[in-house]
């Protein structure tokens, strides 16, 4: 490895080093505040290192990794969400029974895993990243280990993730058997002359899709989502919903673009079915829910379905649409779960929809932030979610996928119903049953609220003035 290689890998090295540093810091001074601030600083450093490596792009570290505009962008999103989760974690864990110090180590490892996914162009690095991410998540989900829901969620995630990893490995092995390589570009080369996929490859790809489908929680692999979202601590849920899904989606997208999987009818058909089912079933299941975390879980299933609609055409527009929508989804989801985190108290998370009653009159700022996030999820203009949805529709319609676009529209109308229900609850009633703010940590409470306000300003800023971000994404190339 040359010096330049190390330079290009700075963000990943920083993240890996941070986890060790934090471990050392725990050994020296066992103070939650110090550790939290330390990791906040390290996250910031890792995030800013992304700007630093811009001039190298695109940079290949053969055969495993590729660092180009798209992967740096995805890494940026992932590290950013790690940063936000880190900020939110303080007030959440400070009053919990569990000592939260190791939590930050795990958070760094998970972020590292997701980032490795974003830069990988080889099955080995893909699997490596995925396992770093998943193993860290087992512990994070079950972090409050004396609580039943947490343990249940942790076990569920453990079993299903191990199961899906097995599928993924077997699929990779089959593809390796067919093509003789695990690197995306060589796989792509061996497919170029073929008109249809050989059965062995198709089986392998199918099994990989099962594995990846579990991680992305698309229908029909979505069963675990609601339970895990509900059981995990709220900041961890935010992390699962954003960073973990974003990393996996990025590598899937890169794989499909590189092998040009979009020209095979069978694969397309499978993806279309998954997208349609995710949009419809995700939204329909959310309608019945009374638990905000579960609602957001099902809505994330639907949003992955929307993302697949932009994914399916596989055009230049797809790359931009997927990038933009991922950004929109990250910002919005972090904001929504951030509010859940801030409103949670010592005993329970603020997950019952009833506990949001009269929030508008009790905490107008929080309610406005939450509304902006929900409206963005629903895709209403003035928010980034609308521009994202517009982008997706444009990408779909450009390739002539009218029916899928129509299904997207119909299912997002269903989605509107439950987002509106939360908003309606927030202005219904006169008296809030939530406690009066976090008196214990007024400074960190303020910091969290400022962070969330900044996020909601981002939601509106990119909703009104998206052209800057769009121009930036115009340069992404995946091949």
């Amino acid at each position, binding site marked *: 490895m040359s010096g330049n290689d190390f330079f290009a890998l700075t963000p990943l090295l920083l993240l890996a080093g941070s986890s060790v540093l934090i471990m050392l810091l725990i050994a020296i001074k066992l103070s939650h505040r110090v550790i939290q601030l330390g990791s906040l600083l390290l996250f910031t450093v890792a995030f800013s290192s992304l700007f630093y490596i811009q001039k190298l792009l695109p940079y290949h570290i053969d055969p495993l990794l590729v660092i180009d505009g798209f992967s740096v962008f995805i890494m940026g999103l992932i590290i950013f969400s790690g940063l936000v989760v880190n900020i939110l974690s303080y007030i959440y864990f400070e009053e919990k029974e569990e000592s939260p110090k190791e939590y930050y180590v795990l958070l760094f490892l998970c972020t590292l895993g997701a980032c490795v996914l974003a830069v990988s162009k080889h099955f080995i690095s893909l699997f490596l990243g995925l396992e770093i991410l998943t193993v860290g998540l087992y512990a994070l989900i079950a972090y409050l280990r004396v609580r039943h829901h947490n343990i249940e969620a942790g076990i569920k995630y453990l079993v299903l993730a191990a199961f899906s990893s097995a599928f993924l490995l077997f699929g990779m092995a089959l593809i390796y058997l067919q093509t003789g390589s695990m690197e995306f570009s060589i796989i792509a080369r061996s497919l170029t002359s073929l008109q249809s996929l050989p059965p062995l490859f198709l089986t392998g790809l199918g099994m990989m899709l099962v594995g990846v489908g579990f991680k992305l929680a698309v229908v029909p692999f979505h069963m675990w989502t609601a339970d895990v979202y509900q059981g995990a601590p709220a900041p961890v849920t935010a992390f699962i919903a954003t960073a973990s899904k974003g990393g996996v989606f990025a590598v899937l997208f890169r794989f499909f673009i590189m092998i040009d999987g979009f020209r095979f009818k069978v694969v397309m058909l499978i993806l279309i079915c998954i997208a349609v089912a995710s949009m419809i079933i995700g939204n329909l299941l959310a309608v019945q829910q009374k638990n905000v975390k579960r609602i957001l879980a099902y809505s994330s299933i639907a949003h992955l379905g929307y993302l697949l609609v932009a994914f399916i055409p596989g055009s230049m527009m797809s790359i931009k649409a997927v990038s933009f929508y991922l950004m929109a989804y990250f910002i919005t989801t972090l904001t929504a779960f951030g509010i859940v985190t801030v409103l949670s108290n010592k005993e329970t998370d603020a997950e019952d929809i009833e506990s949001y009653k009269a929030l508008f*009159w009790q905490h107008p700022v929080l309610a406005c932030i939450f509304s902006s996030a929900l*409206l963005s999820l629903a895709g*209403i*203009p*003035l928010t980034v979610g*609308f521009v994202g949805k*517009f982008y997706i*529709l*444009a990408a779909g*319609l*450009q390739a002539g996928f*009218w029916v899928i*676009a*129509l299904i997207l*529209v*119909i299912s*997002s*109308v269903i989605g*509107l*119903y439950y987002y*509106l229900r939360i908003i*309606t609850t927030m*202005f*219904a009633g006169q008296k809030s049953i939530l406690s009066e703010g976090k008196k214990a940590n007024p400074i960190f409470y303020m910091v969290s609220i400022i962070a969330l306000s900044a996020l909601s300003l981002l939601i509106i800023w990119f909703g009104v*003035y*998206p*052209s800057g971000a*769009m*121009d930036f994404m*115009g340069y992404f190339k995946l091949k």
Partner: protein
Amino acid sequence: MILACIIGILMGGGLLALLLGQWNKNLSRWIALCTLLTGFIALVAFWIDQHHADNIHPSTTWMIDYRHDWIPSFGISFHLAIDGLSLLMLVLTFFLGILAVLCSWNDVKERVGFYYFNLLWILAGISGVFMAMDLFLFYFFWEVMLIPMYFLIGIWGSENRVYAAYKFFIFTQASGLLMLLAIIGLYFIHGNNTGIYTFNYFELLGTAISPPIAFWLMMGFMIAFVVKLPIVPFHTWLPDAHSEAPTAGSLILAGLLLKTGAYGILRFVLPLFPEAARELATWAMLFGVIGIIYGAILAYSQTDLKRLVAYTSVSHMGFVILGIFAFNELALQGVVMQLVTHAISTGALFILAGMLKERLHTRDINHMGGLWTQMPQMGAIGMLFAMASLGLPGLGNFIAEFLILLGAFKANIWLTVIATVGLIFSAIYSLRIVQKVFLGPSERPDQVRDFSFREIVVMAALTLSIIWLGLYPQPVINTVKPMINKLEHVFLTGNKSVQKGNHQATPSNAHKYIVKK
């Protein structure tokens, strides 16, 4: 620039009202009122100015054109322009906006700042809709007005408000998304034909689309507009939303939101898809006539005063659709008149209903009666607007409906004959309002107070304008004449070459007469 300022002033005023409303409730009321008055005076001054200028260049269609790049990678620009129709609707928007502020002056006591914020943002969205000449921007404003309206109904409405707010939002949002699909479809078809990807209205005007696709794209637009208008199978959100909304909300819904649907058809559906629109004409007129009769019958059978007035809107909007699809100048002039006069007369009836509700705490007309003796002023005004609603000569609605029927008669005789029957129904339900509310034996022995000074101001403004429109409608007709003429021109000469010529002429027209403000 003045156009962007109009939207800016409304949004800014809304924010100011929200922020200052924390300290002083009265302050946000005054801010809202001043914002709207400023805009209104500016627009009326511009209108009068333009009226003089019109005599010099009678062919000017576009009065102001303002354009600024917004999302260049998609060919989206912040493009506002107004012609006579837009100007008229803008004046109407600010006029009704002022009345909406005035009539909720004492009504709203809680969360005043947020209330006026929503009110002004709805008006900003509506103004944007009337000015946007970029299809993306149009959709943007189309949706922007929904959220504050949802809050207005959902927070300050009466008992069943949450249901009504949901229904309103989901109906309009669903239909709006279908329009978005059609807009994006049109964008790509135009882009593939010409290589220029743009949402600019003037560029999209001449797009050559194969007839079946044009039909579906048009239906995408139509569905959004007829839900807003509303036309009969899609009208069910309207009575709920109107009756549950607070008075100002009903006023804006009936007076302005419904008009955006008609405006959309006039501005977008007919010019963009003339061939497809002609094919749809008979069906559209038929549904219009069904709306007229059905709305009137349902209005007659209501006991809730606000629901009754809401159904009369359905009936009156049937005339609008009938007139639009007659495609001739008389009918189109009538449509524009109907938009303005219906906004005033129905708005007045909703305000009256709101005042009665405030005094009697009921909207059930069976619990009213004999109120004339106690409130002679309100009785007289109520009588006047009931007469306006039934189309009494001398009041604005008569001109509107007469012109529409005259124009529609040329297009389709039998449907027009049936539509005329609707006028008889409207006489029946209007007289029933007067009979049940103001005449008959008195239900209540206790004293009910008559108009306050503020209410007199509101009602006087409405009364003067409806009589003015009935006696001297010429300013309105002159203002929209260039736009209507051009629209009629598209349909008179149905062949493609003229359309192309028209398309060529439009943007140059617009730019030639840019008025730098």
